[in-house]
């Protein structure tokens, strides 16, 4: 009887509150680490799943991995090039020296940058001889930009050509510093950037820029005969 009375009186202290704190603790931990745990769970599912995954409905993509000599031609006819719509995965970006491999999307909204690296709408796609401005998260694919050195090669593979750019320099600048990029130049300069410092949690005003010049890749021409 005494034991029953004790349990009834102390239930809040020894049962309900610890249970409540436990649940709250798990919710907080889950919310904090969901972004790290979920990809691991997905990868595990990929290994143990019997069915082939289908991501077509989730990601708009026009990129198809091809392995032909056409991708290394000197020119490509403009009418064979498909201009991507905002948020579309249209190419693959690689920096082989550091095993950086990521999908390149057209557009750079926060939703796009969660999936891969994104190209600013106001810059041109490879081959037009105009600058490309590409951003990515420093806790994602572009975390490796901190190791990139001069003369490293950045490769962008599209459906119509493989483009190689040689790194010419890096720069740390404020996000409002317009001298860090020149989008009006008539030169195919590759500009990659991410937040700086690399290991900071939260938002920063500085950006780490990596610049590259085009080494190879087909020029997009409206009339190949004239080119």
């Amino acid at each position, binding site marked *: 009887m005494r034991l029953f009375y004790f349990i009834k009186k102390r239930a*809040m*202290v020894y049962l309900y509150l610890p249970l409540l704190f436990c649940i709250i603790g798990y919710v*907080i931990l889950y*919310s904090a680490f969901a972004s790290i745990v979920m990809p691991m769970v997905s990868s595990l599912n990929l290994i143990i799943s019997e069915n082939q995954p289908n991501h077509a409905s989730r990601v708009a993509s026009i990129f198809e991995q091809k392995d032909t000599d056409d991708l290394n031609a000197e020119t490509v006819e403009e009418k064979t090039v498909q*201009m991507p719509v905002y948020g579309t995965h249209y190419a693959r970006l690689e920096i082989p020296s550091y095993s950086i491999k990521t999908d390149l999307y057209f557009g750079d909204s926060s939703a796009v940058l969660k999936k891969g690296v994104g190209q600013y709408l106001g810059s041109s796609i490879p081959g037009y001889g105009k600058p490309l401005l590409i*951003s990515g998260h420093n806790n994602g694919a572009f975390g490796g930009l901190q190791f990139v050195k001069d003369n490293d090669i950045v490769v962008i593979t599209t459906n119509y050509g493989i483009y190689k750019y040689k790194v010419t320099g890096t720069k740390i600048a404020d996000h409002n510093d317009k001298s860090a990029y020149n989008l009006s130049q008539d030169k195919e300069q590759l500009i990659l950037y991410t937040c700086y410092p690399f290991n900071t*949690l939260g938002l920063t005003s500085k950006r780490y820029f990596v610049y590259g010049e085009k080494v190879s890749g087909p020029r997009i021409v409206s009339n190949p005969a004239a080119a």
Partner: protein
Amino acid sequence: MKKTILTVICFVMAALSITASAAGLDTNKQKVLDALTSSFTVDGKVVSLPSDVLTQAENYLKRDDVTITKNQADLIVTEVEDAISIVKDSGVASIAALDARDKSAILENIQNAAEVIDLTVSVDSAKSVITLLDDKGNPVASDEGVIKVTGPDSSALAVIAGAGLALIAGCFVAARKMRLFSK
């Protein structure tokens, strides 16, 4: 007669091949782009649209799913010319320096031009950002900042942690009030 028919067919085929070009610009699209690229001088300063805005327009016009008829191109060019004359008449060298009445007149020109090709204009007054959206809601062009946020956003984590702490503090206070810690 046969020769005439053949000539007409060749002409029609050639015209169709121009309008059906994939990433290129046909005559009508080029006309719109030319109107947007036009510049003029105010007090010795060249006034034109920023190069990144022009590239956004060019990228949109090069899309396969975008077709512009001659009539649509003419209507858009008229709106662009109206907007240019507003800036010219105001005598200022940048859109930012325009007064509120001129700014809203130019916004109307943008809305009218967008409507011609089924684009919608979204205005974020708080950030002073104008965005053109296509019929699926995808951004087509925007004067939003060029450089984006590319660091981990820990604000959600901070909110969750704050809420968790507040909840724990609440539980503690409630337990104290109910004298659950007394022997």
